[in-house]
């Protein structure tokens, strides 16, 4: 066991944990924060995407040990009430079907918009191809990202 200190959704977090344990399982099992999903365990599907220092990372392969002093944001911390532009756009477009992959999709999209305020379709392909959706909501995700960029840019 080891104690690892980092910031989680803006608050200090002190984790007493098996150091190799991936962040995904610390969030889900130790903290009961189940918005971040398990899909593959090998960074192949993107369902577990969170932000570490603003970058989208796959929490299923990110050991808690590597987080010392870093800022972690999960879907629970993206906004208090679903008011992040990406969530608003997702809501407007009724993007989710089963919804299981959508926390990861939203976290990937939110990180993309921090880097590129107005992403092209090619930008979206490059980043979002890491997130699988078996319900095939890709067309709606693409529209929602463009819409979120508008919302974020101040267009209602």
């Amino acid at each position, binding site marked *: 066991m080891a104690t690892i200190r980092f910031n989680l959704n803006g608050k200090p977090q002190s984790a007493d944990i098996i150091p190799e344990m991936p962040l995904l399982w610390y969030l889900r099992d130790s903290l009961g924060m189940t918005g971040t999903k398990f899909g593959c365990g090998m960074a192949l599907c993107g369902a577990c995407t969170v932000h570490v220092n603003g970058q989208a990372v796959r929490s299923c392969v990110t050991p808690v040990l590597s987080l010392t002093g870093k800022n972690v944001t999960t879907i629970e911390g993206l906004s208090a009430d679903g008011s992040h532009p990406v969530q608003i756009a997702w809501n407007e477009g009724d993007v989710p079907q089963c919804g299981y992959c959508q926390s990861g999709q939203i976290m990937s999209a939110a990180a993309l918009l921090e880097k590129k305020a107005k992403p092209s379709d090619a930008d979206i392909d490059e980043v979002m191809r890491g997130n699988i959706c078996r*319900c095939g909501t890709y067309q709606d995700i693409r529209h929602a990202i463009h819409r979120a960029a508008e919302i974020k840019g101040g267009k209602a």
Partner: protein
Amino acid sequence: MSATTVNRRGFLQVGASAAAGLLVGFYLPEGSKLAAQTADAASARLNAWIHIAPDDTVTFMIHKVEMGQGTVTSLSQLLAEELECDWGKFRTEFPPVDKAFGFQGVVGSQSIRTSWDPLRKAGATAREMLIEAAAQTWGIDKSACRADSGVVINNSTNARLTYGKLAGAAAKLPVPTNVALKDPQQFRFIGKSMKRLDTPNKVTGRTQFGIDMRRPGMVYAAIARCPVFGGKAASFDAVKAKAFPGVKQVVQTSRGVAVVADNTWSAIQASRLLDIKWDEGLNANQTSANISRIFAERTQKPGVEVSKTGDVAAGLSGAAKKVEAVYEAPFLAHATMEPMNCTADVRPDGCDVWASTQMQTLAQGAAAQASGLPPEKVRIHSQFMGGGFGRRGMTDYVTEAVEVSKAIGAPVKVTWSREDDMHHDNYRPASYSKFEAGLDAAGWPVAWHNRIACPSITNSSGQPPQNGIDRTSTEGSHDMGYGIPNKLVDYHWTEVGIPVTYWRAVGYTQNTFFVESFMDELALAGGKDPVELRRKLLAQNPRLLGVLEQVAQKSDWGKPLPAGRFRGVAVVNNVGSYTAQVAEVSVDQGKVRVRRIVCAVDCGHVVNPAIVDQQIRSAIIYGLSAALKGQITIDKGRVQQNNFNQYDVIRIDEAPVVEVHIVASTQNPGGIGEAGVPAIAPAVANAVFAATGKRIRRLPIQLT
């Protein structure tokens, strides 16, 4: 809440207390495809409930479950329409599985079809009772009142009483019979793209899926299962597994060895450290090549006749030209995004199970059997599903969780790794399809013979085919919509040691690929345009012809495309709906790129156009993953694919633009969740032929 009673007609039941409000239960016919749609009153079952609370909230105790297909929203529209609800005060809950609800499950794109009349009648009946209660309160005739958006209004005084205020009195009234349903012209919810009720919680991560369940005192488990189907653990050494941090216990289950830990990750990691000696059983030498060989051998001889029209032998011998071809399709995994999982708490006096399941009633039976408790002592708590696609119609993951909980005497969540999910699915069956057809001198088909070898899904589910026929193996072929004077479909039920089950659109997924591809071969052989040939053969099938004509028009069939793009077409009638698709593809250095799909669908009366559109687009992407990438292969009796790196699926950069055109219809609703799957593979394969001259007779489509 007072006890409920079934009235003589068995259709509605009502019970209430003033505090609890109005509670209306109603009968819904459950449907296997073959089951009669009319229910004898005496055999009626109760399986859904309306609850109107004093605060005006209407809660629909929904007997179905949500796996993305939109049931929560679209079934609510049916009920709310006739109940004249305030949509903003409408809620849904999944009640525990109960015999009183009848058989519960979501399979075969049945939810809207089986709920269309009963849910509207239930809503209308409850509405009339609320109106009557208001009329009595005001001392006027009910004809002087109307219901609107959760209130009853006095037509002459404009006085208003909310449903919440009326519910207690309404519940004490006799249940009216033969209540009139609304004229569709008056629909406010049905036919409208109501926003999905499940969206807000799905964009904030709050939706609780089965895998998110947590219980006080719960432990976590992962199970190592024999890599060969049907094998068992002969002995095992758990020393290394037990030494892994967080591990509490190791117990044997009916088909493997479970590691119990204080977190999921330790359980999964330690399960891989188990040293297990497997008794691999009868299938230890099976390979995909051998399975293919078995199919080829079996189809040398006639199979059991499934459907027959005219005289195929005579039609073939009199034909001016003959065409033959052999097609094959592989096993496919479901690969739901949420891996299989189940939480169980077995106690001496009862058992609670929290599961994302498509088959709630079967889950209850499986848990009863595994726990040794009677079904009425088993409470199944249905959770949102992270995809189902047929996989969650099975109950193996429920059985295992119950076994582990019983063995350790504590609540436990068993989580499958993605590798477990890939290796221990029941698969879309591999299938083998031989065609022989004859054309007349003008190039039109006069004889059609299709012989199929395929493992039986019903047999895998414990019901061996009667007379050797499992129609899930031949659907899409024996019931194809084309008028050809001499037709024969015969079938070899062929078991190869690999468990199979329902996979979104079932037998249509492979047989529509076979039939629609071979139909294109006949078009070529007879010198016909693929649409022209289908148009002629569908002359007696107006709804299928209708979607064909619409897709031809919307895709500009026959008009020039940009350089390097090619089209293919396919049609299908499944789950009570009619679908036609045109795929536009390009092929670059052996890589197929699907650019655009145009789909026309006639699914009868549409409840929610946005959800129909979503489901068609969803089904097309699901089918396209299979068409371009999907295959489960077997070596030494083992599945060779482990995770998404070896069983890849369509991702956003490969997803074509999909245009859906819905045919306006007043026919009863058809199913929609599976309607879009079957035609995509043949539409793409036919476009690939147009592009390359290479006929794809084996899935997935691979040119290099």
